């Protein structure tokens, strides 16, 4: 029975079926919302309402495209990389609880697990850039690696204050601790730092440096066509969804909310709000440069994250004494 439960969770909710549906709507939302920011209309005709089936149509189109492998590339790795990318991108989902019950992988150290698998993705990017054997891909892969150096430290520091506040590394426990007050109110600085560095982690504007179209075509994905590109595209949005779910879980109180909706619906609504915010940022800001990102990360975010840790420790001591 346990095995059956696990299989249902992996395959349906909160596993594969759920995340693909959610990603589908996020892709549609991004295209529609960004179009409205740009004074365009966006997808309109495919599907009954507001081009809702446009994304499906595009994926079907991608399936029909020829997959071209560059003659100098490592063929086996080149073909395997998109599938590996989607796999690695969706790994963190295993430890994200959409509800107290609906979680695939329970562990007392699930936060560490998530941090670990989330940082695997830039390695996929760097490796893909290397095996494509194209100069643009190569530069893009190197940039992905550099970016990892930039955002990783402030990101982990900002999560340290979450761990301090909840005295736990278990995400379920972290969310339960937020039943009264969300951590965004207790550690706003950490939340901001985490948000900024997660933008860099997901390669979102203004930190989409590894795939900067204007400089290096499509960065480390330049050589990919057809469905193998489509899978990278999917992985990109899966990471966006999981990143927003994670922010919701760590700072925005997870499934807690007034009892007008079921808990997991609250979870989704909050993460959708985060995604809308990320999309609007894409509509308003240009891309920063690699050296500027490193500057921001090391000179501003890292010291602030340390200050935030100290502040959180003080706060935790106060909360401990008054016994809240």
């Amino acid at each position, binding site marked *: 029975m346990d095995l059956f439960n696990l299989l249902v969770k992996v395959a349906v909710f909160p596993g594969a079926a759920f995340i693909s549906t959610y990603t589908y709507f996020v892709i549609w939302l991004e295209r529609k919302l*960004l179009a409205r*920011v*740009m*004074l*365009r209309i966006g997808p309109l005709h495919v599907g009954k309402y507001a081009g809702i089936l446009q994304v499906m149509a595009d994926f079907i189109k991608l399936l029909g495209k020829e997959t071209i492998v560059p003659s100098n590339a490592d063929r086996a790795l080149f073909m395997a990389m998109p599938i590996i990318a989607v796999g690695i991108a969706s790994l963190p989902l295993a430890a994200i609880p959409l509800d107290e019950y609906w979680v695939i992988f329970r562990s007392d150290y699930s936060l560490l697990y998530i941090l670990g698998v989330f940082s695997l993705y830039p390695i996929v990017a760097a490796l893909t850039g290397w095996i494509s054997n194209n*100069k*643009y891909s*190569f*530069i893009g892969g190197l940039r992905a690696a550099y970016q990892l150096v930039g955002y990783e430290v402030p990101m982990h520091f900002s999560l340290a204050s979450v761990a301090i506040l909840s005295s736990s590394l278990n995400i379920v426990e972290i969310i339960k601790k937020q039943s009264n007050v969300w951590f965004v109110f207790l550690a706003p600085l950490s939340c901001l730092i985490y948000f900024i560095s997660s933008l860099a982690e997901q390669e979102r*504007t*203004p930190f*989409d*440096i590894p795939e*900067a*179209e*204007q*400089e*290096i*075509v499509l960065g480390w994905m330049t050589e990919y066509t057809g469905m193998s590109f489509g899978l990278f595209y999917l992985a990109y949005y899966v990471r966006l969804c999981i990143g927003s779910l994670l922010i919701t879980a760590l700072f925005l109180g997870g499934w807690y909310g007034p009892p007008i909706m079921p808990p997991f619906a609250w979870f989704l609504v909050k993460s959708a709000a985060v995604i809308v915010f990320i999309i609007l940022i*894409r*509509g*308003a*800001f*240009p*891309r*920063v*440069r*690699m*050296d*500027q990102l490193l500057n921001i990360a090391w000179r501003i975010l890292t010291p602030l994250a340390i200050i935030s840790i100290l502040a959180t420790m003080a706060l935790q001591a106060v909360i401990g004494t008054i016994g809240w």
Partner: protein
Amino acid sequence: MSSLLRVNWGPQHPITGHLRFILDLDGDIVVNAIPEIGYTHRGIEKLAENRNYLQVVPLVERVCNIDSFNVSLGYVMAVEELMGVKVPERAQFIRTIMAELGRIMSHLYWFAIFGVAAGLFTLIMWPIADRELFIDLAEMVVGSRVTYSYFTPGGVFADLPDEFDKRAAKTLAYFERRIGEYEVIFLHNKLYQLRTMHVGVLDSRKAIELAVAGPSARGSGIRMDVRSDEPYAAYDQLDFEVPVEDSGDACARAKIRLREMKESVLLVRQALNKLPEGPIRVRVPPILPREDAYSRVECGRGEFGIHVVGQGSDRPYRLKISTPSFRNMSALPHMLKGARLADLPIIYHSMDIWPLDVDR
């Protein structure tokens, strides 16, 4: 040399246009940038020798199709000088109005591409949508939308329609408000300032040495503008300011163009108020005399010069065009040396180089 990475940047690339750069990269730094032009060469100067001087007007417009009013004005003025024709006052004012509308359209197009060069895709949509209003204005007068052939030797071929005043006033009022919005989302955007300030700096001495033209030169603190230095059309009867910025970086060049658009709005308003009554065209002789004439106008991209040689028939003997983009192109290898790869599109597009204009 083995530690350098040689990258081919263009011509099939999302942002270069029909141009190619051969880059030597040392890490993220551009050590050497060799521009390669000629992908859009159409031989316009040679083609012009086989057409009569009226047929050359639509041909010359293709030199810089995005700014066709100003370019054709240059050619038409050279032909008039050759023939010794005096253009009626009303035609001069109408020419000024249309040339300024053309400048706004050209700058809006530049603005769209410059925004994308830094990765802000919203900016390719907003200015292009606003440009549509000016295209509509031009369509109302001329009937066509991009290449107009509106100026003819001796004047303009059609008068302004009756309701042009009202429509233009409406469009200009709307556009003035929009420029304010652009300044907020663009010039005052901290990330944009981060990307454009102190990037691609060209000091005024170097700019003079490299013969940089137009707004790019004015961004380096050189006060030169054919409209005020050697007034043509009706510019001598209108008041306007030539914006100059001293810092010489990409941000200064962007500011110059935004300020120029504001100035153009005021110019069109002034010209519409002062518009005299009278004929719009005079008759011109059917042949070009065996002489030569040179005229220069201030295009959206800078000084555009055209030399026409007549041979006593209706066809020009020789046409020689000097374009602002070509002059600015020659400054690029100098400016790109030592720049970062990510700054390359910004520096390149801050000079407003139009490949068609470079190649002719």
